[in-house]
């Protein structure tokens, strides 16, 4: 895999309609390898839908997606994940009745590939414990390994979800509003974590907290009513009149 191009992910005229309603339209995204690419935009702009297209929760109505130069538009959700594109969800996606440790172990099991070993004892999973604990340490959850995930407070659930996502060792990480609903302290901790994660992988994140965006993002795409209306670094984007009108204007009104 030498000569990997500088662009890890590229979408061409990506479009999604829900029975006539256009949620994503004409999105040409180029994400540079190793960067943190933020997507911002008002509610209902189609940011989550864009993630859903990239991870094949939905099939695009039109357009293509290329990952490392390979067309992945036709692949299924699990195939995308196994290729190295793993996401977190806007509404924390955890397994509430499994323990914190078991949550992360599920990702490790998935990474190992499908296995239908219903005759093996659970003990065979214990050798994954140390690795799972490593990921939990990185998000500061190693003090509640055996808590039920559903008993965690909100901010820590998000942290667990990120740990689970990281356990897949994704090449490209998609984070849908990782700091939503967190207090300032957790926000800072999560931002630090994202920065650390970005060292050896690429991250696309949808984020409403502009402070976090300003601090982390190398590139920002502004999505409004399905379309990307502006792109660039924080200074460029925040100076753009279209953005001021459609997004910042609305937010500050």
């Amino acid at each position: 895999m030498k000569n990997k191009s500088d662009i890890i992910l590229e979408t061409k005229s990506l479009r999604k309609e829900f029975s006539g309603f256009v949620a994503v339209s004409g999105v040409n995204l180029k994400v540079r390898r190793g960067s943190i690419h933020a997507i911002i935009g008002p509610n209902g702009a189609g940011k989550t839908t864009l993630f859903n297209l990239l991870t094949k929760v939905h099939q695009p109505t039109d357009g293509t997606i290329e990952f490392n130069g390979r067309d992945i538009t036709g692949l299924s959700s699990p195939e995308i994940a196994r290729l190295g594109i793993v996401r977190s969800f806007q509404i924390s996606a955890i397994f509430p009745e499994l323990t914190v440790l078991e949550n992360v172990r599920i990702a490790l099991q998935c990474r190992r590939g499908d296995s239908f070993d219903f005759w093996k004892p659970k003990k065979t999973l214990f050798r994954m414990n140390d690795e799972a604990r490593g990921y939990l340490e990185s998000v500061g959850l190693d003090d509640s390994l055996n808590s039920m995930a559903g008993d965690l407070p909100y901010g820590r659930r998000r942290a667990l979800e990120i740990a689970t996502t990281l356990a897949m060792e994704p090449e490209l990480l998609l984070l849908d509003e990782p700091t939503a609903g967190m207090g300032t302290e957790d926000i800072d901790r999560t931002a630090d974590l994202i920065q650390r994660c970005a060292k050896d992988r690429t991250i696309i994140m949808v984020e409403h907290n502009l402070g976090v965006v300003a601090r982390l993002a190398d590139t920002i795409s502004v999505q409004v009513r399905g379309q990307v209306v502006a792109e660039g670094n924080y200074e460029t984007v925040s100076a753009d009149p279209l953005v001021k009108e459609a997004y910042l204007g609305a937010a500050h009104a």
Partner: protein
Amino acid sequence: MNETKTNVQSNIPVLDRWNLEIIGIVLVVLFFLVAPFFIYPVFLMKAMSYAILGMSVNLLLGYVGLLSFGHAAFFGLSAYMFGHFAKEMDFGVALSMLIAVSGGTLLGVLFAMIAVRRIEFYFAMITLALAQLVYFFCVQAEFTGGDDGLQGIPRGEILGFSLLENSHLYGFVLLMFLFCLLFVFRIINSPFGEMLKAIRENPERVTSLGCSPRTYKFIAFVLSAFLASIGGALKALVFQIAALPDVHWLMSGDGVLMALVGGIGTLIGPIVGALFIVWAQDGLAEIGMSVVVMQGLLFMATVLLFRKGIVGELGRLKKYFR
């Protein structure tokens, strides 16, 4: 809170789910060893074969989140096949049971191929519809004996033990029952079972982590049909009869009810549920109250009042032991 800095293995709470399950198994074994001295053994054997049906429904409902309303098909077909091969073909208990359980399991493969693709709501409907097809097939087919069913299925012997001897029969049913119980225990405590629980909790998340829930559901369904088939064959062996009620949708309903009443997602819940329901059915038959009405009431009470079922509600007490 002081459990934080120890290592993972020793860090597991003393009364976690796994330990409770072991305790449950031991209690169940003790109960069924001692009970025949006090309770009519046929009642216990009926409860055991029903409990196997309950466990099979619960494996799907409690651990994968799939509600099947079609398990009577496996239970009933297996009962019929066992009856047919033991009575008409004289194949003996062991071989007839092997064929019957294989037949029920294969039917499970067929059901799974059709039903597993559907989302939850349709899943219940599709399994019900498929099971009704099987029911009508059994009404029409010659070998089922129509309304009379297959009566007087011979008990014969197994491994040199004559099953005409009541204690031998009881021992055999108990062994098969224990096999099923341990089988379920193994499944739900395996790496595969861990994935099943994850799928139950959040299938979208599992998909986004690179596994496809469908294959897991498929295998779980077939394993469940396998169990239900064992239950059906045992029931035919004990009562020496296989008849239309065994494939009727009410039997599927009984399976669901046993899981619900006992506690879905608990290992021994369906066993407690089966004992309770078989007891209630026999008791009500004596006082002449409609079984269906009782079951309807029971169903509502469980859903409205104690959603976790008998064992589930008891399980809540465990925090007082910590």
